[in-house]
């Protein structure tokens, strides 16, 4: 009954139905929640979350037992006519992370969005949109067809935008509108590229495309359009105008989802595009450009984060920096002819995404707990808060430590893998950026912690007591991120050599110590130089001599910070961001064209195999 298959994997594998379940369970949850509404919506959402968590775990198990990706042909129609769902190691890992983060956020939000006797607006919208985002993300991770991925991307956006403006204040409405319009621009560019791919190759199926795509000028245009569109949705520097106000203005639970998961959706499609749809296409210049934007994002995001006065904005700008970190893997993983060369770098990039998802969600949830108790989140006013909310502060700190890349966190493992790849390829400059990223992260985490651990200026006048369950949800996520490095990733990610081991010994201890000390010491220095500090307490006279030494350097640092903050304001203007977007389209087209000429002479062998175990 089905169209004659042209690819080997065009059959539904056993347990492929799990993939369908992972999508239709949250979809069914959305539909039911919409009808039931009222008081039961929260319980319904919890049931769906439990079910979904189990499915994600089952997929992880099933994938380990199968000797290739899980495949499901929808309606038994094989591509190119039909649409396939595929789960490889990358998708399974991302799905599990999404399930974990959504579960934790669900627990956290259970307290904030508990419907009263009658149905009320915010809980109704929140729970439905949460399940909607989940369904959409699962499609993003599993979809094997570029157009299905487009619909999934739009679903993510439509579910994410109303979450931003859930509290209905004018600022958040504006942030949501900016986000929606910019994301829509990105998706139109993506759809344009998809159109060209269909016109060129007569299919939108990722596996089929990976066999058919050739380095042609029209393909380059398509790739440039799609890449830039996805970057706009991922908010890579300099296309981030919508991110800080949206992520910082949303309710804490929503911020955690937006920062932790939503931006990873478009990032994941970008990975699929560069590594699977068009292997052999991206040239050296294009990968360097992508990572250079990432490096700029790290510097920009971190410096601006250091200068924020509000905790949620620090975390939002930190997201900007961490998104940059995700893109450092491209030049390290891809060879000069655009083929996957270092699976370790790819694994490192994915691991970074996973660690950031958990750690950042934890930090936003912790900040939400603090905000709820204090009624504000000015950093200068956070003194003594650790007494009132010890668990939330611990969660924030652990999340920060995990992000810095300290053992045994996932970010540590990611950094090691990327450093290894950089050393192998001789691209030492990315190693510098990688280390600098850790130092910058340490800087803003330490800056916040220094304020949090300072003595209270005034007793905390609390509107409401801290909710232990909310703090615990944040802590659980932070611990997750911190312990990620201990998990057996080889089963799912293309890690060739064994993961750097954790055996104890004098040498290992000293090595570990140096790896811990570098970011922390560096971070302290950076935070001192670039951070915003109030005047030192007058009664501590011992501060004066060191201050006299530091002061001139600090002034330079502040001037630099001012400059970067001003350029931040410039880049966040709509017309500027729009022009930048188009310039990036042209740049990516140009960079790839550069590689095209090279490859015209030496066309790569047709070794376009399945990249992912």
């Amino acid at each position: 009954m089905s169209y004659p298959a042209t690819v080997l994997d065009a059959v539904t594998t056993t347990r492929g139905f799990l993939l369908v379940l992972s999508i239709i369970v949250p979809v069914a949850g959305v539909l039911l929640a919409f009808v039931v509404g009222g008081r039961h919506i929260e319980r319904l959402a919890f049931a769906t979350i439990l079910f979904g968590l189990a499915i994600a775990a089952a997929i992880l198990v099933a994938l380990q037992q199968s000797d290739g990706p899980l495949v499901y042909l929808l309606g038994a129609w094989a591509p190119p006519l039909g649409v396939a769902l595929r789960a490889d190691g990358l998708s399974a890992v991302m799905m599990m992370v999404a399930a974990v983060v959504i579960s934790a956020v669900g627990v956290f939000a259970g307290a904030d969005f508990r419907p009263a006797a009658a149905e009320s607006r915010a809980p109704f919208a929140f729970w439905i949109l949460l399940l909607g985002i989940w369904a959409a993300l699962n499609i993003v991770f599993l979809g094997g067809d570029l157009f299905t991925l487009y619909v999934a991307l739009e679903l993510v956006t439509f579910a994410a935008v109303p979450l931003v403006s859930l509290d209905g204040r004018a600022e958040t409405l504006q942030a949501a509108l900016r986000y929606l319009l910019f994301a829509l621009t990105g998706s139109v560019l993506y759809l344009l590229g998809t159109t060209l791919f269909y016109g060129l190759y007569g299919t939108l199926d990722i596996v089929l495309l990976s066999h058919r795509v050739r380095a042609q000028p029209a393909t380059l245009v398509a790739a440039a359009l799609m890449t830039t569109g996805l970057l706009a949705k991922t908010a890579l520097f300099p296309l981030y105008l919508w991110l800080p106000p949206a992520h910082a203005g949303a309710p804490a639970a929503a911020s955690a989802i937006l920062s932790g998961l939503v931006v990873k959706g478009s990032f994941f499609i970008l990975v699929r595009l560069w590594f699977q749809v068009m292997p052999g296409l991206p040239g050296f210049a294009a990968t360097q450009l992508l990572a250079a934007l990432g490096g700029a994002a790290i510097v920009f995001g971190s410096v601006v984060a250091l200068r924020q006065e509000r905790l949620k904005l620090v975390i939002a700008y930190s997201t900007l920096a961490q998104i940059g970190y995700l893109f450092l893997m491209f030049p390290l993983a891809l060879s000069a002819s655009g083929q996957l060369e270092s699976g370790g770098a790819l694994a490192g990039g994915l691991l970074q995404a996973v660690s950031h998802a958990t750690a950042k969600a934890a930090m936003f949830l912790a900040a939400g707990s603090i905000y709820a108790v204090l009624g504000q989140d000015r950093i200068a006013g956070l003194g003594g808060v650790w007494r009132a909310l010890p668990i939330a502060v611990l969660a924030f700190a652990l999340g920060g430590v995990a992000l810095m890349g300290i053992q045994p966190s996932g970010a540590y493992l990611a950094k090691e893998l990327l450093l290894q790849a950089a050393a192998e390829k001789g691209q030492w400059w990315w190693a510098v950026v990688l280390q600098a990223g850790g130092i910058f992260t340490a800087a803003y985490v330490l800056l916040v912690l220094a304020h949090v651990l300072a003595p209270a200026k005034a007793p905390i006048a609390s509107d409401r007591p801290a909710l232990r369950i909310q703090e615990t949800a944040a802590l659980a996520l932070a611990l997750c991120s911190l312990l990620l490095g201990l998990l057996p990733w080889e089963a799912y990610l293309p890690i060739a050599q064994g993961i750097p081991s954790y055996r104890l010994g004098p040498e290992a201890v000293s090595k570990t110590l140096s790896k811990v000390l570098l970011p922390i010491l560096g971070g302290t220095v950076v935070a001192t130089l670039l951070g915003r500090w109030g005047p030192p307490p007058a009664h501590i006279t011992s501060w004066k001599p060191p201050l006299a030494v530091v002061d001139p350097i600090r002034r330079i640092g502040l001037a630099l910070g001012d400059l970067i903050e001003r350029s931040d304001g410039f880049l966040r203007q709509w017309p500027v961001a729009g022009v930048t977007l188009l310039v990036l389209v042209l740049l990516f087209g140009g960079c790839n064209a550069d590689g095209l000429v090279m490859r015209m002479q030496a066309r790569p062998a047709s070794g376009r195999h399945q990249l992912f175990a």
Partner: protein
Amino acid sequence: MTDTTIFGLYAAAAVGFGLYGLITNPQPLRKIVAFNLMGSGVFLLLGVVGRRGAAAGFGNDPVPQALVITGIVVAFSATALAVALLLRLFQTAGSATLRDDAPASASINQSGD
């Protein structure tokens, strides 16, 4: 140059107009109109791709046609959501602009909850 290609060039031009309007028009509703123009350009391009693939007695490959129909509905949903956001923003703030002059830290600090 066939007549189908002519429509393809028109579609590319519509995308260009839409991009320009989306970037330079300060009024959000105009941006939404520009987005729709751009979207219609993309859909036309899909139609041209389908028309080029006319075969087996069809004047137009049915697969791109189906994609366009799905795309139109998605674009309409996007327009409706954007318009609703814009109207609500106007109602709440008394102005409808995307301009964000104030530093980010100042723009969100007066929170009500």
